[in-house]
């Protein structure tokens, strides 16, 4: 008994990820934490997307279920779970059944290597970024099989479109990623790394985000990735596979209820996953702003107050909305609910000011904040842009992003090796 407790607690002293420390108990806990957190994030994202998009489009969005529609995602989830699960008679039932699970598994498995902090990852792999790209590329298999198994024209065209789109943009995406990985090797030993944690640590050691490294190469690489990742997740303006005005709903036209909600879940977690890659590779992952310039205990304290302050701000927003709720008996429960939600948020905020919680949560907070910025961008794109046509999408992928990526790769290599190249020239001159 004692040994079990010791086994479980032994991890807490180590400064490794549970996977690297070989501690299966903590690895399991981390897996549960990440997946529960991910599901909550998807639910929040659902609500936020509807509200933000609504306010961009002079509407209110969900307002009925709970105060300001806060319970709407839960109501939707319940509705989807209770809905009849229809399998078309002509469909290939087995493949139709498996397809959504492939997509969900691919979208969730990538989070095994996402570093929320130097120790806050399920595991640290030597091939971390390769693993992420590889597993996220498996999602296309699920989409293709879903479209095929529906045995209908629209899903099939949607599936073909999406497979072509995802495979083409993976190339450009890969090139941008390779240029960032090259930047990790700009150190004394000249060895880079594919490990997600290693990449962030390289940014810490080199005193800059790779976004600004070798200006403007880092920004160009990031831009390529930022475009490719929207295409990769099939979101507006690249949401051709589910272009509702052309193909009704694309590859998941025939899906309903629970299985459809799996596609939904996978789409949003894939968005979070690619945003995590972008944050890790170019925006310093879990690092707080200016970790080197503004170092020292004072600044550490100031920046570690941010998580608590954010929650207090959200709580203040809640209380403000509570004060603005209609003063009518019918709204009493909603008003109380909103106030209660505010109190919970404020309590969480206060807990986050407590020393140990503060230090443990800070990395996760900065990582999530950066990812949340990307999520907002996704919503913003959706409110702003029309949809690309398929051939134009391919043109952007193959004729713009790919050549730019190749040139970028070569330029990054040249700039990274400039001292060696110069010395070679000098040797040649001599």
């Amino acid at each position, binding site marked *: 008994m004692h040994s079990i407790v010791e086994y479980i607690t032994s991890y807490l002293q180590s400064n490794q990820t549970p996977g690297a420390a070989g501690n299966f108990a903590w690895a399991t806990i981390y897996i549960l934490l990440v997946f529960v957190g991910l599901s909550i994030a998807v639910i929040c994202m659902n609500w936020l997307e509807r509200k933000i998009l609504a306010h961009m489009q002079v509407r209110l969005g969900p307002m009925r279920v709970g105060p300001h529609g806060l319970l709407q995602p839960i109501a939707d989830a319940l509705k989807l779970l209770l809905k009849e699960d229809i399998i078309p008679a002509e469909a290939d039932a087995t493949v139709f059944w498996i397809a959504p699970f492939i997509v969900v598994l691919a979208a969730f498995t990538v989070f095994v290597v996402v570093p929320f902090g130097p120790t806050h990852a399920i595991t640290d792999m030597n091939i971390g970024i390769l*693993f992420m*790209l590889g597993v996220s590329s498996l999602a296309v*298999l699920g989409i293709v099989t879903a479209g*095929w198994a529906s045995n209908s024209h629209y899903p099939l065209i949607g599936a073909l479109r999406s*497979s072509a789109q995802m495979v083409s943009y993976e190339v450009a995406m890969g090139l941008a990623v390779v240029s960032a990985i090259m930047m990790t090797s700009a150190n004394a030993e000249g060895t880079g790394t594919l490990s997600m944690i290693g990449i962030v640590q390289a940014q810490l050691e080199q005193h800059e985000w790779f976004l600004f490294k070798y200006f403007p190469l880092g920004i160009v690489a990031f831009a390529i990735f930022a475009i490719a990742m929207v295409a990769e997740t099939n979101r507006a303006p690249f949401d051709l596979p589910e272009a509702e005005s052309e193909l009704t709903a694309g590859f998941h036209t025939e899906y309903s209820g629970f299985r459809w909600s799996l596609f939904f879940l996978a789409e949003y977690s894939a968005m979070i996953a690619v945003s995590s890659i972008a944050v890790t590779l170019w925006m310093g992952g879990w690092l707080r702003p200016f970790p080197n310039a503004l170092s020292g205990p004072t600044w550490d304290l100031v920046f570690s107050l941010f998580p608590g302050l954010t929650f207090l701000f959200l709580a203040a927003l809640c209380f403000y909305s509570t004060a603005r709720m209609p003063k009518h008996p019918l709204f009493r429960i909603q008003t109380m609910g909103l106030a209660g939600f505010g109190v919970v948020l404020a309590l969480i905020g206060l807990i986050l000011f407590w020393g140990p919680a503060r230090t443990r949560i800070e990395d996760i907070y900065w990582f999530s904040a950066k990812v949340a910025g990307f999520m907002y961008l996704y919503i913003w794109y959706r409110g702003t842009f029309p949809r690309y046509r398929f051939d134009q999408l391919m043109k952007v992928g193959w004729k713009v992003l790919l050549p730019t990526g190749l040139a970028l790769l070569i330029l990054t290599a040249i700039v990274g090796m400039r001292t060696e190249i110069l010395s070679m020239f000098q040797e040649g001159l001599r």
Partner: protein
Amino acid sequence: MNPPVATAFFFYLLAATMIIGGILVITRKNAVHSALALITALLAQAALYLMLYAPFVAGVQIILYAGGIMVLFLFVIMLISIERNMKERQFNKQWLVGIVAAAALGALFVTVYTKTSRGVSLFIEGRMSYGESQNTQMIANLLFDRHAGMYMFAFEIASLLLLVAIIGAVVMAKKRI
């Protein structure tokens, strides 16, 4: 010494997945089912690579085989209508030849693998650390290093092969050149 049960368990699990996947590949009527079985087998193989301390090859296996080549296969299967083909006979008359050839080859493998020298199997397992965390760097050294890299030329040839394949595929698939 206690046998490493976890390793054995995972090995046999993945091996069974691969064998069943392989059998499904060659027996399914529907090419999409075959492709899905092959994908399962390939992913199991990637896991086996991880067990062999070859994470980089495992990553390449996932990203290229499962994410690239198999998508291409599925794409092609969907482009060609297979309904008519599924009504036809699936196996040709060479099954006897196939079985005989396979049996002969199998016998050959068995004789090679069971051959022992002085009572010790040819392929015993050495026990040492394999430097998994440096795997990618070491492969890169073999491929690209100016001094230790002995596969640089082969690498260039491989890229040339890929270029030829790209041109070939474009020429083949184009309707009007």
